[in-house]
């Protein structure tokens, strides 16, 4: 009897201790732990001080975040001014993309940002678990000096999936002209010509149709994917630097033979006759977005991360188009192995005196239950609890769009990590993401053989070289590509072009990328 009693007593004591430990994992409410945090507000975000998710997290962790809300438009100037002056810094910067990777390494290397490695090991169990399950995340956020200066934002759903850019074509026009969705480049030419010569949208004007458009900038609207029909797909998406990796070797696409052939062919067969819109080179973003929004559709085909980018009003007329076979029958589309990882979410500055509690707060966002609510809205408002461990999206109220409903209530794209398994078990992807995921899996992934250079951090010295040499090379390259596509002439100028790239330091540039890749992914 006594033994039983003492057993019960010990167990109770242990239980109380366990509970007590759990309870004082977080600071006590009376301690009034609070941090000054600069938070970047996107145009559609509501008031951060009112957001439910932050209140829920504060309830649980007893950590209060004193937000200074800075508009996205003002963010970069203000943050850089403060960090460059180095005085009176806030405790932390909070937002997806709060700094770009160059800034991260530069400021981190100078000691303006705290190195988080040890804290992650000791105080961030959730995040640590994620890192163990997904080592590519660790590779993406570790600077060459071995330090981790930021907590990332990871989301592996269809939207930020592996294929940044897709092609879309107007099915209604195709049907009207009795044509099939093209599968080869020759068929594309035929189709685009037909688009140009006919009054496809039925408004009586033969000339208002633009067979194919694009936007010349480092984004998913660019036509870099077409280059895959001649060799490597050109990488303008990640880091805008034209690098791809082939079996461990880093290749600079604009110096390859395939690139030359692509420029020649595209000019000869498409740009010369206006099948691809020349204005793509000069349009500003607003003008580009305004295309195709009128009463009738006037764009035949375009590139984007999702169908409604230019479709929107006429979305139903468009379908996705699989990568086309080039003149020699082959094709290649680009994919990103590390897409969905944005290395810089939360950073702590050197003026943060007691980082531990803030990091405990941040760790909570890597617990999927809270990360989900941060990204998709709170259970009860934007999400519905199905009762069986899964959740679904609440109906969007009629007076708002889905995005307004989402961004007004919560703070997506900040710091959390949601991977495919989460979407399969707990919350399905949003509809738009699902659609893109399907397209990617069915049409693009099978032929995505060009691996874009992954998201990696470079050392401060390398960043300087990239800033100088790289900027010159990129500018020269963009200039020549525009010229050759719009006006032709690549065959004649190719040799000189390669020579000039060499004199600008191309080999040194490539070496840096190769070296960084080797360090991160091991040889």
């Amino acid at each position, binding site marked *: 009897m006594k033994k039983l009693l003492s057993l019960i007593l010990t167990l109770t004591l242990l239980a109380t201790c366990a509970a007590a430990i759990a309870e004082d994992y977080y600071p006590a409410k009376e301690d009034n732990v609070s941090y000054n945090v600069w938070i970047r507000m996107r*145009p559609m975000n509501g008031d951060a001080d009112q957001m439910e998710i932050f209140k829920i997290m504060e309830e649980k962790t007893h950590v209060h975040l004193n937000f200074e809300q800075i508009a996205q438009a003002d963010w970069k100037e203000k943050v850089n001014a403060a960090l460059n002056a180095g005085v009176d810094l806030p405790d932390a910067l909070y937002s997806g993309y709060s700094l770009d990777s160059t800034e991260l390494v530069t400021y981190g290397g100078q000691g303006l940002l705290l190195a988080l490695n040890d804290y992650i090991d000791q105080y961030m169990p959730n995040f640590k678990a994620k890192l163990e399950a997904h080592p590519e995340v660790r590779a993406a956020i570790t600077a060459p000096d071995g330090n981790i200066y930021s907590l990332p934002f990871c989301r592996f759903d269809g939207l930020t999936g592996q294929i940044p850019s897709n092609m879309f074509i107007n099915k209604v026009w195709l049907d009207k002209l009795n044509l099939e969705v093209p599968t080869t480049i020759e068929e594309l030419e035929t189709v685009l010509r037909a688009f140009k010569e006919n009054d496809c949208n039925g408004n009586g004007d033969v000339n208002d149709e633009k067979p194919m458009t694009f936007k010349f900038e480092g*984004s998913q609207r660019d036509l870099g994917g077409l280059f895959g029909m001649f060799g490597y797909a050109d990488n303008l998406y990640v880091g805008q630097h034209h690098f791809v990796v082939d079996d461990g070797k880093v290749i600079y696409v604009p110096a390859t033979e395939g690139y030359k052939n692509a420029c020649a062919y595209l000019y000869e067969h498409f740009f010369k006759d206006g099948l691809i819109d020349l204005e793509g080179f000069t349009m500003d973003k*607003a*003008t580009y977005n*305004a295309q195709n929004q*009128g009463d009738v559709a006037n764009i035949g085909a375009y590139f984007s991360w999702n169908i409604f980018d230019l479709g929107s009003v006429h979305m139903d007329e468009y379908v996705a188009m699989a990568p086309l076979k080039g003149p020699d029958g082959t094709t290649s589309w680009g994919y990103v192995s590390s897409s969905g990882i944005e290395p810089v979410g939360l950073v702590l500055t050197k003026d943060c005196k007691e980082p531990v509690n803030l990091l405990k707060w941040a760790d909570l966002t890597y617990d999927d239950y809270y990360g989900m609510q941060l990204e998709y809205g709170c259970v009860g408002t934007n999400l519905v609890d199905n009762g069986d461990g899964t959740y679904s999206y609440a109906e969007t109220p009629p007076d708002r769009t*889905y*995005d307004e409903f*989402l961004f007004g209530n919560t703070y997506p794209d900040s710091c959390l990590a949601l991977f495919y398994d989460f979407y399969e078990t707990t919350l399905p992807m949003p509809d*738009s993401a699902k659609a893109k995921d399907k397209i990617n899996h069915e049409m693009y992934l099978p032929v995505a053989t060009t691996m874009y250079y992954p998201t990696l951090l470079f050392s401060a010295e390398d960043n300087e070289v990239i800033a100088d040499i790289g900027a010159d090379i990129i500018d020269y390259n963009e200039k020549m590509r525009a010229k050759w596509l719009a006006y032709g002439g690549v065959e004649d100028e190719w040799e000189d072009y390669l020579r000039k790239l060499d004199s600008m330091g191309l080999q040194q540039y490539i070496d840096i990328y190769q070296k960084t890749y080797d360090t991160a992914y091991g040889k």
Partner: protein
Amino acid sequence: MKKAKGVTRSRADKAFDVMDYVLLTIAFLVVAYPLYFVLIASVSDPIAVYEGRVILYPIKPTLEGYSRIFSYESLFTGYKNTLIYTLVGTAINLVLTITAGYALSRKDLVGRNVMMMGVMITMIFSGGMIPNYLLVRSLKLYNTMWALILPGAVSTWNLIVTRTFFQQTIPDELQEAAELDGCGDTAFFLRVVLPLSSSIIAVMVLFYAVSHWNSYYNALLYLSSSSKYPLQLVLRNILIVNTLDDMVNDVATQAAQQRMGDLIKYGMIIVSSLPLLILYPFLQKYFVHGVMIGAIKG
């Protein structure tokens, strides 16, 4: 300008006048059309604007842009703040610039050339953003109105213009006469110079007020409470088209944002510059003619 009695306009004069009218009318049209365009674009369907269909009149007129702009409460705080900053700022600017400009215009001021050199140097050389940022911080001006007003308390450009004005309009003889009469510098300034300075004061008010009204950069750097934001900063943040979220998730948002952003873009110009456009005609009457009548004899 009144014509002298009895003198008829010669043929050369008539020709001049005709040319004057013609040239100014051309100038007027060339300037006015794009302004008119901004006005009609601010109430037209944005797609029509991009398609080039808005030329002489609004297409599918709508006041959505304006109603959206005015639905933001922060707009009114913005107006209020800018009004305060402009009034206080311009007052300080005036006091400093007019007094210093006058002093520097005096030929008998010892050290004058050295000071002008100094002024010139500050106009051309600047230490860059960081020292200024550190200075504002260390003077504890962060998040106060003074961070917007003090760093720009005197514009070298305006100072030089003021000095030139005084040099041109206050003749030496007047000064000498006053000195002989035993009038001190300050008294001379207050009783003689100021009353004659209405046109330079008007110009300075205009230049400084407009500069305060349109400024946003210092506010961006140094203000942390949004309740202190001036108009331009508020407008910048309301305008979403150039910061259009690229990664929006759904169709309707995309279309709605685009449309609203474009409407707002043009409407913003009207909303922010209307008060200034009204200010100028008031100041115009201070550009007085014939200032020095009767002051100098012989």
